[in-house]
């Protein structure tokens, strides 16, 4: 039974008792009561017998001495159960004195003349002491059981909370909170950064988090995998313990703990509990890391697949125009004399068109690669959406020459903080798509709305629209609704749009509009309000 170690500490709010081994009885905890409680309990050992004496007094003529002794014995039981062993011994002594003085003849004297009374009193005292001892054992076992149960349930709560946590930050927060609840004080977890130097976690500290840990001591604990700081319960100035988090593959971090009562932490029972806590947290962290690594591996694999599809897509889309250009150029070079003027012109036109197409593709591929690589830093400036639309339309001037473009714009001079070059690229891609995928002559509708919440732009055409179920796929890289069609494009235009819009913290969606046609809508949230412009003196010049 007594794997309990050599000491108990009762946590929680009523730190009423501390059980501690004495040198004489290493496996037999003795209750050491807090001083104020001890006096109150000892007082109980005197008051109860005196009360019994008062109750028995009126009946002294009726009751025999053995009856009275029985009552006293009952009192001793009560004290033993209620207040513990030593108060019950005191109660026995008080009983003896009261019995001798008030009931055993001669009355009002401590002398006892009747040998029967003397024997009765002696037996009562022995029985009282023995039963007190038994009651005390029962009482202590109850306390031990209660303590163990509390410990088990606190561990249960910890493991239950940890089982539901998936992110490292969640696990750390749970660890900090539960260790605080169990051991009081403040604590924090320190983990190595990329360079292997210990530092505080990134998460916002809790109000119970420990700040100002001694990182040098923590690093020592981390390096040697051994507890550092105040390593004994001697009263040195250091109040913080640095406990290494030893995982299956080595030390993964350090717990810095400044308990509310440093001495109690050094009770073996408490240390064992703390170690169990730390182990649970370490295992959960390792589990989370393993899951994270598995996820990364999957992502890597997906990236690999994507790269392959990129390669095949690029080789297809670039090889064809290249073949045409080389072929046409060769013909011009070799058979110059035999070609008539018309054929020569045709070949030159082919070269020009195909290289333009290749140029567009290359630019898109490079743009996407740049966005993907995370190299793009937004150069946000204050711009009126009207200006962006205008410059995008101008870039497509030739393409849209024979098409009606309707622009609906409200509040068109409101400024919004965006990267104009990238947003212009988005508009060019959207308009280019609308032009490419709707029959010539049908109008394109642009609508722009600036509200205090954000900027919404829609570009809608009257083409065939996007087949049901593919509306979210059109933003995927290299996705083309009709992959076999001769419509030039690598399927990157909308992916670029999405990457740019998302870099602005916005979103973009594709739907079909009523009456037929695709509708692309982007929304950019407003993050800052435009700076104030000093008004100009209003008098116009003449």
């Amino acid at each position, binding site marked *: 039974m007594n794997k309990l170690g050599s000491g108990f500490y009762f946590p929680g709010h009523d730190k009423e008792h501390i059980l501690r081994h004495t040198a004489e009885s290493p496996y037999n905890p003795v209750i050491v009561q807090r001083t104020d409680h001890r006096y109150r309990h000892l007082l109980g050992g005197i008051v109860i017998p005196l009360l019994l004496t008062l109750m028995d007094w009126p009946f002294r003529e009726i009751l025999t001495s053995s009856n009275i002794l029985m009552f006293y014995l009952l009192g001793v039981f009560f004290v033993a159960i209620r207040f513990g062993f030593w108060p019950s011994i005191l109660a026995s002594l008080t009983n003896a004195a009261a019995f001798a003085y008030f009931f055993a003849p001669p009355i009002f004297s401590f002398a006892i003349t009747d040998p029967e009374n003397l024997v009765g009193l002696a037996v009562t005292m022995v029985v009282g002491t023995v039963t007190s001892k038994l009651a005390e054992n029962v009482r202590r076992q109850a306390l031990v059981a209660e303590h163990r149960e509390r410990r088990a349930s606190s561990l249960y709560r910890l493991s239950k909370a940890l089982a539901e946590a998936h992110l490292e930050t969640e696990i750390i927060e749970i660890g900090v909170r539960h260790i605080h609840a169990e051991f009081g004080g403040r604590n924090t977890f320190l983990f190595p950064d990329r360079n292997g130097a210990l530092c505080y976690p990134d998460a916002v500290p809790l109000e119970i988090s420990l700040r100002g840990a001694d990182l040098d001591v923590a690093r020592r604990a981390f390096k040697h995998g051994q507890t550092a700081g105040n390593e004994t319960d001697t009263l040195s100035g250091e109040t913080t313990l640095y406990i290494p988090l030893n995982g299956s593959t080595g030390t993964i971090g350090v717990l810095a703990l400044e308990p509310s009562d440093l001495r109690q932490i050094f009770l073996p029972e408490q240390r064992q509990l703390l170690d169990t806590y730390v182990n649970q947290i370490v295992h959960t962290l390792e589990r989370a890391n393993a899951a994270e690594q598995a996820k990364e591996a999957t992502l890597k694999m997906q990236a690999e697949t994507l790269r392959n599809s990129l390669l095949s897509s690029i080789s297809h889309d670039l090889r064809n125009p290249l073949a045409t250009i080389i072929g046409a150029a060769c013909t011009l070079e070799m058979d110059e004399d035999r070609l008539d003027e018309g054929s020569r012109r045709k070949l030159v036109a082919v070269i020009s068109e195909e290289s333009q197409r290749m140029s567009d593709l290359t630019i898109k591929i*490079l743009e996407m690669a740049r966005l993907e690589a995370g190299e793009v830093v937004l*150069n946000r400036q204050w711009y009126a959406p009207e200006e962006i*639309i205008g410059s995008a339309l101008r870039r497509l001037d030739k393409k849209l020459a024979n098409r009606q473009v309707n622009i609906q714009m409200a509040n068109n001079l409101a400024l919004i903080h965006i990267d104009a070059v990238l947003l212009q690229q988005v508009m060019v891609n959207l308009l280019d798509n609308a032009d490419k995928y709707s029959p010539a002559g049908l109008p394109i509708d642009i609508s722009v709305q600036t509200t205090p919440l954000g900027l919404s732009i829609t570009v809608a055409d009257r083409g065939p629209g996007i087949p049901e179920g593919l509306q979210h796929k059109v933003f995927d890289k290299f996705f083309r609704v009709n992959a076999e069609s001769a419509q030039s494009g690598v399927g990157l235009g909308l992916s670029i749009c999405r990457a740019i819009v998302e870099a602005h913290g916005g979103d973009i969606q594709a739907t079909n509009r009523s009456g037929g046609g695709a509708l692309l809508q982007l929304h950019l949230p407003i993050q800052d309000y435009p*700076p104030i412009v000093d008004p100009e*003196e209003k008098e116009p010049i003449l």
Partner: protein
Amino acid sequence: MKAMSPLLLLIEDDPQFQRLLSTTLETQNYRVLGFTSGQEGLIAARNSQPSLVILDLGLPDIDGQEVIRRLRKWSEVPVIVLSARDQESEITQALDNGADDYLTKPFSTAVLASRIKALLRRVAKVPGGAQEIFQVGELKIELTRRRVFVGTQEVSLTPIEFNLLCVLVRHAGFVVTHRQLLEKVWGPSHIEHSHYLRIYMGQLRHKLEADPARPRYLLTEAGVGYRLYEGEN
């Protein structure tokens, strides 16, 4: 002098691209001096006094920006910079350093030819003194009388709007960077206040353009600056 065709200095490190440009420009009756490094180009600019410099920003020896800075210390020769795409900040810097115009690769040689022509024409015009009337399409600006007309209708502008328009007119056909406009219209203290420029440019468009969302005269060069349309050459 007039019989002599203009001399163009071409500093471009890609030999194939240089060959293409030289051939194209020579057929258009320019004399072309080609160099593949900035050092050589700068020496040639000093020795042979070209009418115009075409400079690629990505050079193997010195940074193209540095070439412009050194050139501008002693020469007012027009400079057109060539740059790879998506380098608006590079372009803006080159223009602020004193380049007159820019083209992003790939570009059509026809556009290059028209930019060269426009720059040479501007240089030729300068000694004649300040221009009095600027006119393109429906837009007519009388600079000294400070009056602006769209068609026959006079438009009233605020002083700032008019000053802004004036700066663009002085550089008509060429891009003027945000920084240059802010400095010339609002003063050096407002160089970072690009929102002023956007608001006044918006107001100008609403007063001068038939459809402000599809401007014909006041053109935006996203990320770089503005260009006042000068008409077809």
